[in-house]
């Protein structure tokens, strides 16, 4: 298959599946809380509605406010092209590795935080400050997780990591591997603003982190920001599933294998999403200054993962 068609598929999948995934998680949480909840396609309808609404821009805003949604969306989309959703050594494998993916997402958060500050509202400032704090505290865990996987695979390239785990399936049962997964899971909760760290559904100014930064956006800008958030959530789950349990990711580029890859991806995402939904219904939001302890736990888990992989080597 022409390599760039594959990248096109990756891009399409990231764009198409992410709102659905969020819709599925919301549906599951509603059902668990005894509500009917809107359908899986509700996020698509919201995006379509927003795209056609009029943009309301604050008088204080500068060009940063206008550019931030674009940069956020573009960087998340490019990250999507790099993450091995369906096939392992992607054509763009030598362009960006795991570190690039993480830092692309950080680029998006950076500009979103700036946009939050731009509108001179207290909530925007608060959101940016808290978002950047959590992003900063999550970095060390991500680095250690990447370090652990890269030491095992010999390089930080996503293709090699997937190929390594595929060729040595017994490695996944080692304690280090599982601890790395747990650490990355906690980081995913922090980065994408899921429940124990930040309540995605709330509009209560004092508690929201991600929501506060995007308070001033409306119309197509809000659509782009929401979509990027959903894509980021989708990518994190995809990373979690494909790097730690890479079965189903097609190694040879035949159309059949690709279809199997898509199926495996959807299956893994559904499993992870249900786990997440169960977790979110049971947990309540942590106070902001307890979040560093949570991230500290994840850092410790990642560190144990690495030291065990060293000492056992």
């Amino acid at each position, binding site marked *: 298959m022409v390599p760039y068609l594959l990248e096109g598929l990756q891009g399409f999948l990231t764009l198409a599946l992410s709102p659905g995934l969020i819709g599925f998680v919301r549906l599951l949480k509603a059902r668990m809380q005894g509500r009917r909840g809107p359908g899986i396609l509700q996020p698509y309808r919201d995006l379509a509605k927003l*795209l*056609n609404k*009029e*943009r*309301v*821009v*604050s*008088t*204080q805003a*500068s*060009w*940063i406010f206008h550019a931030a949604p*674009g940069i956020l*969306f*573009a*960087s998340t*989309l*490019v990250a999507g*092209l790099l993450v091995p959703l369906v096939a392992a050594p992607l054509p763009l494998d*030598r*362009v*960006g*590795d795991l*570190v*690039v993916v993480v*830092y*692309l997402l*950080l680029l998006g958060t*950076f500009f979103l935080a700036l946009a939050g*500050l*731009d*509108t*001179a*509202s*207290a909530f*925007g*400032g608060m959101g*940016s*400050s808290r978002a*950047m*704090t959590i*992003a*900063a*505290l999550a970095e*060390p865990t*991500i*680095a*250690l997780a990447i*370090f652990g996987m890269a030491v095992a695979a*010999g*390089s*930080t390239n996503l293709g090699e990591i997937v190929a390594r785990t595929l060729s040595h399936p017994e490695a996944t049962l080692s304690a280090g591997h599982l601890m790395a997964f747990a650490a990355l899971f906690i980081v995913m909760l922090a980065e994408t603003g899921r429940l124990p760290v930040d309540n995605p559904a709330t509009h209560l100014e004092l508690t929201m982190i991600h929501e506060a930064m995007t308070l*001033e956006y409306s119309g*197509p800008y809000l659509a*782009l920001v929401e979509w990027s958030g959903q894509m980021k959530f989708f990518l994190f789950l995809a990373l979690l599933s494909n790097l730690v349990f890479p079965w189903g990711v097609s190694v040879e580029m035949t159309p059949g294998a690709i279809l199997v890859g898509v199926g495996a991806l959807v299956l893994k995402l559904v499993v992870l999403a249900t786990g997440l939904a169960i977790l979110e219904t049971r947990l309540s939001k942590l106070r902001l*200054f307890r979040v560093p302890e949570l991230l500290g736990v994840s850092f410790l888990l990642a*560190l144990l993962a*690495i*030291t065990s992989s*060293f000492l056992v080597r």
Partner: protein
Amino acid sequence: MTSTDAVIGCLVVMGAGYLGAALLAVLRAGRRSGVALVTCGSVAGSAAAILALLSDAQAGLGFPSPLPDLALVFHLDALGAAFLLLIGLVGAPAAIYSLEYAPGGHSAGGGRLAGTMLPLFLLSMSLVVLAANVFTFLLSWEGMSLASYLLVIDEGDSRERRSAGRWYAGMAHAGFALIAAALWLLGAKTTGATFVEIREAAATLPSVVRDVVFLLALSGFGSKAGLVPLHVWLPRVHPEAPSHVSALMSGVMLKLGIYGLLRVGLDLLGGGPAWWGGLLLALGVMSALGGILSALVENDLKRLLAHSSVENIGIICIALGIGFVFRACGMTGLAILALAAALYHAINHAAFKGLLFLGSGAILQATGTRNMEEMGGLIKRMPRTAALFLIGAAAIAALPPLNGFASEWMIFQSLLAGATLPYPFMAAMMAVAAGILALTGGLAAACFVKAFGIPFLAMPRSLRSAEAREAPSSMQLAMGVLATACVLLGVLPFLMAPLLSNAFRDLPGLSGVQAAFRIGVVMEAGPGAAGVSPTILALCLLVAGALLPCALLAIGAARTARRAETWGCGRATQTARMEYTSTAFAEPLRRVFTDLYRPTKDIAIDFHPESKYFVRSIQYKSSIRTWLENTFYRPLFDLARPLAGTGRLIQSGSLHVYVAYIVAALLLLLLLARWL
């Protein structure tokens, strides 16, 4: 004309340019021509460096002197050329910038002293890199300190500037003494104390002497580079200097400390035991974390940038430390990878830190203040400066397409390669270092969101920043040059390939070694290891960014926009007091790292006389004096004060005591004479 003559020609042009500019400034002749001379001097210097790197020209210049120890001998080798390029990279824009830089109303380009000292400062830095014997190195090193000291002091008289001057002079001279001791001790066995002789004699030195020399050099050069225990002068001095000089000091002078470490550690001593690298790594990690934590809670923009320089020097030293460890373990391929990463980050830091300091200078000139709490909304008044400052902020926060990311990625790869070290404990430490490096990267991103957001975005917090005017064109040109450098170094890393791969070819033990990395369109850290291509990545981002508005238009997204007041829960008007300040922005992180900051807090509540429940005013004052100063420097000063007191007892004024001293001295010496 062989390449050697070309290099010497360029060097002569460089020297002539700087000296000519200094002369013009002394005679108060045309300032424009002075700046032009300095710029062409810097360009000539960089040209010489590039020529020396590309061709293996061994350009040497020696002035014979009757006493071999005091001869002035210069020699440009690959390592020196790399740093000479760095000086030229920041020197030219700084000179252009100084043309119209005149904050606080005093004459543009500073007085006569500042005019002469800037070219001499650049010249002495270039000579440090060219020096080939101990005397020349020490002469140009102390000349550099003196020139920068005068530039700081001449900026105008204020209490902080004088105390900053004293801090700087004291630490610089103490550092100089340590370096002098190290180098003279190193050159003790040789006749002319030239680097060539030292290199041969170094192997025969006993290992104790080699360790002592390394520790002396580490503390001497570390104090100049701003490594943690000796960095305290840096945040006090850099903000006081004129902004283009702060850019030079932070961007270039700190790197000469790194150059010194490389020159003594790897070149003259030819590498040493692994604990050298381990110590350097530990200091680097502490500097990185300490630097960024202090930068986060800083409200003075230039002081924030100075703290961030400490952080970046820490990151460079992490890479340097791993390089030393690899060198000690004989893994020379990986050693060159780590050292190249350090050099690459040094050059990148010179570019973006120079840009940020020049930007802060433009703000200082426009708003007359360095305190971020009084800035705000400058992006509307100074759009071009804002855009350039944003590029610098994004680069320093290591965001992908720019140069900060490229060098930080290489450092992460060298840390990763460190995992293959024979010592398991050292390998585990690599992981911890990677974690702390990432934490520093995250905190840097948060810090520079604040450093860009508070001054430039939202509403102006003071009258002056409301009426700020855009920086003059020469300053914008200077910033533009550095900004393009940031982008090019990031997006087209293969520009740096020739520099990075053969900058270390002259070091003993590392010459002719196949470097573990290959930088083409794709940057690969060693055979089979990870590869990244910032060029294609930037292309993808551009394409995605460009396609987006077309896609929106294609699917008929709404195009109308309406300006409205920022939503404020229905209150009447939006004022500047409602927006987030820099203290507020850093408050969550301050709370997270309280045990490191240990802020002092005192609250004064003024109750209404009638009842305790009505409060007239609450005064809350909190200050952070980094714990390091209290634990390390405070006792040092308390110890020095009584020591100075003993002097007063000796000179008590009584003649009888004085004559008694003579008699006592006579008797003591007579006793000694019997037994010596």
